[in-house]
């Protein structure tokens, strides 16, 4: 009887049952600012030292996959926006690309639309990284960078609101086109923003990135070796900080990215070991710089050969009825947090998919946390959570 019980118990039950008397089990979250949302971490500690971390998710589960089985592809876009609510544009871009490829119209999308999509996605990537960097400063105890990051993010929010009508959840990129063309004067204002924003990054680097206190808190903390990162499916800045040049914008060459010049920053271990918290932070800083480069190139094209014409209709290629033929299709795209994938199963008859699965980058990045935070101090655990940059809307879907 006893044997039978042991084979039926999960690793979680064993961990809790085998905790020793001098060890303590404490809960961090779900309502705690440093968990970046509603994440509960059950931590087994020996004094200040973390023995084991067990994440519990699901507090923000909104049944995205079930909803998607009852809605048409176009109607799902607002739901998709709400997954990673800090990078709505990137989410809907990936979704729309998947549907367009299934329909076979991805080659017919006008160049201007592709460039506008890339432009708003990169703006959103900067906004998303600014939140990650600013809140990470707060986790570590630096308050000023947070205010600076949110001040600059506000300009992006205002611009995207101007284009789409809402500040955070845009519903701007549609299957076969866009909701609206960019408003008149957007390109000029965006250019002004880029010129304003570039020196601000230098200031942020002086204040936080090269700050000795910040480096002491993050260098050599939470080192993620490359093989572990790949085995756990980590992607995005998390994987690149471990030293691998893996960016789906270059691997898959989707949308307008093959025509744009940008580098892929990787972690080099400048302040400690490759793949530590500082490297993850630095990769995001460098990515903002690269995104700014992409935006400048997009603006140049949009103001010259792809200029707005009076008869340009961003909804011209929109299909009246979206019924892909019966097939399975997996689309992946580079989100600010990593590889975002959608897996569609369609039956070829109806306008709603039979099954949709969302592969959320934060879900994978979070799964590695118990591996890299064994034996660290509790204060370092907070530094590790912040450096992963999770969005719980996407983990729980």
């Amino acid at each position, binding site marked *: 009887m006893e044997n039978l019980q042991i084979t039926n118990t*999960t*690793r*979680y039950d064993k961990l809790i049952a085998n905790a020793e008397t001098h060890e303590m089990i404490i809960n961090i979250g779900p309502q705690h600012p440093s968990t970046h949302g509603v994440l509960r971490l059950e931590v087994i500690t020996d004094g200040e030292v973390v023995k084991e971390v067990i994440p519990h*998710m*699901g507090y923000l*589960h909104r*049944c995205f*996959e*079930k909803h998607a*089985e009852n809605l048409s592809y176009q109607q799902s876009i607002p739901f998709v926006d709400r997954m990673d609510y800090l990078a709505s544009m990137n989410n809907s871009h990936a979704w729309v690309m998947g549907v367009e*490829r*299934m329909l076979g119209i991805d080659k017919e999308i006008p160049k201007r639309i592709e460039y506008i999509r890339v432009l708003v996605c990169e703006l959103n990537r900067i906004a998303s990284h600014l939140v990650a960097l600013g809140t990470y400063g707060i986790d570590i105890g630096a308050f000023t960078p947070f205010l600076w990051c949110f001040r600059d993010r506000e300009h992006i929010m205002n611009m995207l609101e101007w284009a789409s009508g809402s500040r955070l959840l845009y519903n701007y990129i549609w299957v076969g086109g866009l909701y609206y063309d960019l408003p008149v004067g957007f390109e000029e204002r965006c250019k002004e923003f880029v010129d304003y924003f570039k020196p601000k990054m230098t200031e942020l680097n002086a204040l936080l990135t090269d700050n000795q206190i910040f480096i002491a808190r993050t260098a050599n903390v939470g080192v993620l070796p490359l093989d572990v990162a*790949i*085995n*756990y*499916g980590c992607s995005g800045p998390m994987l690149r900080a471990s030293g*691998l040049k*893996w960016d789906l914008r270059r*691997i898959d060459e989707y949308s307008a990215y093959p025509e744009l010049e940008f580098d892929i920053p990787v972690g080099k271990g400048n302040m400690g070991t490759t793949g530590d918290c500082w490297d993850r932070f630095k990769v995001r800083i460098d990515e903002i710089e690269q995104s700014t480069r992409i935006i400048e190139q997009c603006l140049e094209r949009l103001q010259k050969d792809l200029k707005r014409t009076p008869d340009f209709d961003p909804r011209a290629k929109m299909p009246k009825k979206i019924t892909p033929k019966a*097939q*399975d*299709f*997996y689309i*992946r795209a580079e989100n600010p947090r990593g*590889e975002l*994938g959608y*897996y569609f*199963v369609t039956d070829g008859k109806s306008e709603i998919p*039979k*099954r949709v*699965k969302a*592969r959320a980058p934060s*879900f*994978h990045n979070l*799964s590695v946390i118990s*591996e890299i935070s064994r034996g660290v101090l509790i204060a370092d655990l907070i530094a590790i959570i912040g450096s992963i940059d999770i969005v719980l809307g996407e983990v*729980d*879907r």
Partner: protein
Amino acid sequence: MSVEEIKELLIIKFGSEVILKEEVSGLQPALIIQADMIAAVCQELRDNEKTYFDLLACLTGIDYGIDENMFGVVYHLASIPFKTQLTLKVIKYYDRNTSQLPSFPSVAEVWRTAEWHEREAFDLVGIRFENHPDLRRILLPDDWDGYPLRKDYQAQEYYRGIKVD
């Protein structure tokens, strides 16, 4: 390596019965693998230096519908050094009237990514994974009834005294 070459490689290693079917009509070809052998096939595809699928991008549990009465798991593999992708599928017939869950071998030993994905498939679709180290619900509460992504799912009326809408 192309899908044809991978197919040959698997047949040489495991015999011709390992691949039940091949789907080539869609944009992404898929191999349907015999369900009992999926863990060994995945291990081989990851370790073989000609294929080297070191990343499990996605794992999906599917209920194929009430009429078909089939349950399946889809694996999306990616190889970082070769920049290739591959789709594997396993499918089983399942009688909905039994109390046992449909069951597939776990690949959590091959890629640690699979651990949480299989927990999610267990949680939402109700698929059991043999030899999984930590098979618990992941997104829903532990005492939730039923598996929401099944096609015949009926939500419970009350959960701990709260009306479920």
